[in-house]
């Protein structure tokens, strides 16, 4: 190979290295996908061990890395301000590699060998389901799950800080019907989140007088959507509500675009798209796409903007802070947990869980957040946004924090 091509290769992998360099700087690699961030100066007290189980490699790494970045940023922040209850935080990071079987092994290391005091993480619902038993039953630890999901997770000691179907559909679906049309097609990946979220969304569609013209669930790694796209076009669909995930999602969006879906007035709705997810598609393909999340970069309250700038300064622009990826949920998880520990004065699981039950933070990306007592889910602001030219415009904001409506007492 010529010298130029070797240089090309080197500069590329150097750039790749830089993307994660900010995350890993200061961290020590322990082998087998584990990393540890030790508190900087000498402290009088034993550290509190915080465990993070996130996908740093594999298809979901595009969501996992920002979560890890946020975690690191917050841990260093908290330590700089004196720790929690006089103790510093020690961050343990495990790469769950988008591989549930591997993740279980690594998370078991987190709770057994490293003996962390809390675990935050798991991004896809299948990952959460795979590791929750290891954490809660075998490891007897507290578990916070930061990502948007399908609801119905009412396990004790499992707290969810991401948006639920009620938060994502109750105002979003009517907006879609008002601003596009009444015929909905549901295209999802074949696992629990799409099925359950779509079930809720379909209910809202029907309650508002809409029509469901079709439904299709594809294998998670399918990259060929000709048949589905054709069905969508022939049925006169107005809104394609898609719960596909990468790697299928960008291919599907591309094929829909190529079929001329938007040209004839259709709109894609995908709650997984925000400014950072946009990078998987080209701007032409996502023009007009609508999404509903707890935060967009376009949200312009001062705290959110400041947070975003701080994050970007530390970690660059390649893996930005995003709601679709769970990094805003990670923010809430860490901060709410911090508040709970402060209130209970201890790190024992039952004490913290009791405090977490009604924990509240007044500021966060997109606004503050508060646990609804007895439900282990969080009330938060929701925003509807539409993609324009590769960026998002906020078109609707909720009137104050929206209720998650999960795990309600019968």
């Amino acid at each position, binding site marked *: 190979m010529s010298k130029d091509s070797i240089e090309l290769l080197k500069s590329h992998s150097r750039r790749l290295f830089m993307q994660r360099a900010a995350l890993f700087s200061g961290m020590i*690699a*322990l*082998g*087998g*996908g584990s990393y540890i961030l030790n508190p900087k100066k000498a402290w009088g007290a034993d550290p509190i061990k915080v465990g993070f189980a996130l996908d740093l*490699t594999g298809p979901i790494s595009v969501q996992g890395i920002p979560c890890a970045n946020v975690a690191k940023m917050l841990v260093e922040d908290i330590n700089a301000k004196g720790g929690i209850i006089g103790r510093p935080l020690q961050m343990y990071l495990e790469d769950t590699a988008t*591989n*549930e*079987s*591997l993740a*279980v*092994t690594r998370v*078991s*290391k987190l709770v*057994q*060998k490293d003996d962390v005091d809390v675990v935050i993480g798991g991004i896809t*619902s*299948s990952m959460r*389901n*795979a*590791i*929750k*038993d*290891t954490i809660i*039953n*075998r490891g007897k630890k507290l578990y916070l799950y930061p990502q948007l999901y399908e609801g119905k997770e009412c396990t004790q000691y499992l707290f969810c800080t991401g948006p639920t179907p009620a938060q994502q559909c109750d105002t979003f679906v009517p907006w879609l019907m008002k601003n596009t049309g009444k015929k909905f097609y549901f295209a999802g990946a*074949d*696992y*629990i989140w799409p099925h359950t979220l779509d079930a809720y969304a379909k209910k809202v569609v029907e309650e508002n007088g809409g029509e469901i013209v079709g439904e299709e669930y594809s*294998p*998670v790694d399918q990259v060929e959507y000709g048949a589905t796209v054709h069905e969508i076009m022939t049925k006169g669909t107005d809104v394609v509500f898609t719960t596909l995930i990468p790697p299928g999602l960008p291919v599907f969006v591309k094929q829909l675009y190529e079929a001329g879906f938007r040209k004839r007035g259709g709109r894609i709705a995908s709650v997984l798209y925000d400014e950072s997810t946009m990078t998987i598609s080209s701007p032409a393909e996502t023009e007009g796409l609508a999404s509903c999340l707890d935060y967009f970069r376009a949200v312009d309250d001062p705290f959110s903007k400041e947070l975003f700038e701080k994050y970007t300064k530390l970690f660059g622009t390649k893996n930005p802070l995003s709601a679709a990826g769970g990094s805003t949920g990670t923010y809430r998880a860490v901060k709410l947990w911090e508040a709970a520990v402060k209130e209970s004065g201890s790190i024992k699981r039952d004490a913290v869980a009791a405090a977490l039950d009604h924990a509240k933070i007044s500021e966060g990306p997109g606004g503050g957040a508060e646990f609804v007592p007895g439900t282990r889910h969080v009330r938060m602001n929701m925003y509807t946004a539409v993609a324009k030219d590769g960026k998002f415009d906020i078109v609707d904001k909720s009137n104050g924090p929206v209720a998650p409506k999960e795990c309600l007492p019968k």
Partner: protein
Amino acid sequence: MAIDHQKLSRPVLPWIEGGLFTLFLFLPLVLEHYWVLFITRVVILGLLALSFDLVWGYVGILSFGQALFFGGGGYCAALIATKLQVTSVLILLPSAVAGGMILSFVIASIVLFGRRSPTAVFVALGTLTGSYVAERLLQGWTYVGGQNGIPSLPRLTIGSVEIEEGIRFYYLAFGLLILVYLGLRWLVRSQFGLVLGGIREQEERLSFLGYKTQNYKGIVFCLAGMVAGLSGGLYVFHEGFVGPAQVSPMFSTQVALYAMFGGAGTLVGAVIGTGFVEAVGYYVSQYWEMGWPILLGFLLLIIVTYRPGGLISFVVPDRERVGAFGGKDADVGLELEDKCHGHA
């Protein structure tokens, strides 16, 4: 290469086997809890690698689908445990074995049997495809959890005693490994084993001599499937989780790697290969997280090209190995001749 008659009376293999046995017997007593979990996994995966070595090293069947029987056995046991609320070892492990056996029989009937003997390539491809198909099916099948798999598996019990991960589980797995190992060792050094060696070397000639080679291959393949199923049953309860990744082609090829690395055709080589790859992998990835797999690939390439006998060939002369691929055929033929003529 001529036979060295003096070396005949000083076999190295039993020393290695004995040494490892003693080491593994006492290791968990001195290790931290996390490391006990680690070696338990090595033992369980070593069992799986054994199943691969059985078919590849002794019969010459390149099975890239052992994960199918491993994961399949695991799923069987997991389903019975969760749907029927059973936790007894005495029911779950045999069900895993049965799962492995049934699946391997199905695969054997498609890939191994038939009017004409299939080519090595077809077998490798067919087993790889089996693994792939199984993974896709499991991903889409909601009853068994789909992509989620089956999480939150209960612990195995003997009577009312729970077998927790750690020392208890280790000795269960270790005990089973020893049992299976001894059984297989006896088998391959018996007349049956001789036929297997013959099938590997010159299948046609053996069938002309009147042996129904397909039956032998089928039996061994199913036996390997059973061992793989047992390994799977142990694995899923140790981890508390079973998912489609455990039947995947990636996993199948990983197992093949363990066995080839350690050295095919020696049984203990498979276990050594597993331990080596897992342990070295853990340490090397401390310094070069993402580089370890590529290093592993290089090592495998070097071994395959220059030292097909695997790691164990550094210590064990080729004479003692019944399985070797790509060369050294003369040695093996001579060893078989030895046995036929009643030498030690």
